């Protein structure tokens, strides 16, 4: 395992940015591990959430933004709810994800693609078009076999519409995305 120079490698600007965007004080974390203890996703994480917190405290930007964990957090709020120091840990995970996106880190490509496809669908139709979302996702990832076995289960139920539910104000919704992008720049 590599030796970390905790002085030289600590990115203070990064810590400040995380604190600013999340409105949380990462210094409050005393590493009790309660977030890791409660997190249902620990089994798929490459870095458990309490160590994510520690790495934020230590300003280890690169390791954090390139990790899988931040893409696999489902924001189930168990960490936030049980944190003895009242840190909104889930929000910090969200903020790390935002930063990773902005800086082009994607450790879980399919997860990101699914979310992007979802938002594309919203931007286009105003509401999510489930069938279209799946189709686009499959096309983008090339994972044609995924969930194939579910087709016979769900299709006969007649729940999935093959046409999007367009809303009248869909351009207004698209406008929200547009203004957001402008604001980002």
């Amino acid at each position, binding site marked *: 395992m590599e030796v970390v120079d905790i002085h030289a490698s600590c990115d203070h600007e990064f810590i400040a940015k995380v604190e600013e965007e999340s409105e949380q004080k990462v210094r409050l974390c005393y590493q009790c591990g309660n977030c890791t203890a409660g997190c*249902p*996703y620990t*089994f*798929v994480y490459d870095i458990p959430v309490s160590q994510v917190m520690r790495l934020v405290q230590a300003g280890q930007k690169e390791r954090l933004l390139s990790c899988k964990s931040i893409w*696999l957090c*489902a*924001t*189930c*709020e*168990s960490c*936030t*709810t049980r944190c003895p120091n009242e840190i*909104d840990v*889930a929000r910090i995970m*969200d903020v790390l*994800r*935002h930063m990773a*996106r902005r800086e082009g880190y994607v450790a*879980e490509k*399919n*997860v990101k*693609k*699914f*979310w*992007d496809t*979802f*938002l594309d669908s*919203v931007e286009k139709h*105003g*509401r*999510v078009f*489930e*069938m279209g979302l*799946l189709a686009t*996702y499959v096309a983008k990832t090339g994972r044609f076999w*995924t*969930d194939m*076995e*579910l087709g016979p*289960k*769900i299709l006969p*139920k*007649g*729940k*999935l*519409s093959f046409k999007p*539910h367009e*809303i*009248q*104000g*869909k351009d*207004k*919704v698209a*406008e*929200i*995305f547009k*203004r*957001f992008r402008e*604001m*980002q720049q």
Partner: protein
Amino acid sequence: MSTYAYYPGCSGLGTSQEYESSTRAVCRALGVKLVDIPDWSCCGSTPAHTVDHLLSSALAARNLALAEDLDAAAVITPCPSCLTNLKVAVHRMSDREFRMQVNKLLDKPVDRSTPVKSVLQVLAEDVGPETVAEMLPHKPLAGLKVAPYYGCIMNRPPEVMQFDDHENPMAMDNLMAALGAEVLPFPLKVECCGASYGVARKDIVAKLSGKLLQAAEDLGAHAVVTACPLCQMNLDLRQGQASSAAGHKFQLPVFYYTQLIGLALGVPQSELGLSKLCVNPRLALDAMHAVQAEKREQEAKKEAAKQIHKAKAA
């Protein structure tokens, strides 16, 4: 009772049609007046807040702004994911600066702080299980053993959601008990089912939902009851995937709580949408009927014994 601005959520038009139709039917039957938010749009759900909190709040807030014209007591929605996005938007917009930022993204700005609740909260608090129980003195769901599963974000984080006990919620338990059902102390009421990872990482959902199904099965549940479209889909549609991952075949019907209330209240099948469930609900309902029949038989026997006893005494 007050009028509520109703936000159905996108999945209500698709994968959770039966939740949507049974919710409307149950609200009608219990006198909860719903007025749809006109031309509502997607709240942004999980994907939006993973991109940006401002965008996420703006997508939700568009609907809050539209709801303001309805002058309703509250905006209500059946879906916890929509609920979270709407509530977080309201919560964070109590900060003036943030609200101004959000309004910059919107055509119609938000100027009021409208309370947002789940339909479950309205049924549990504004209607109340007592009222439901009074309407159903014959306890139509007696004998049905249910495991109520709330999902992870119906009550969390408590500062934002402001509803029920965040570790051991009881709203659905109490409503189910009001129907006569036998409510099991489901230990994983607020544990996550895998959320929206079904498509991109179905291994996660299979494992987490499998845990939940296992716990329900261990308790001897006839069915799981949910209040969330995503939870229901993960537990029901993906039950086969969970079975494969666990190496153990689950056969647990997964109801929406509104379907069971509707069933008890005598809502027509077309609105209940029981046929839209993947795991056959008959499994649970048959078990319930069997219990009920057995109970009737026992009572009849008791009654007969009494009669004989009386006759002898006479």
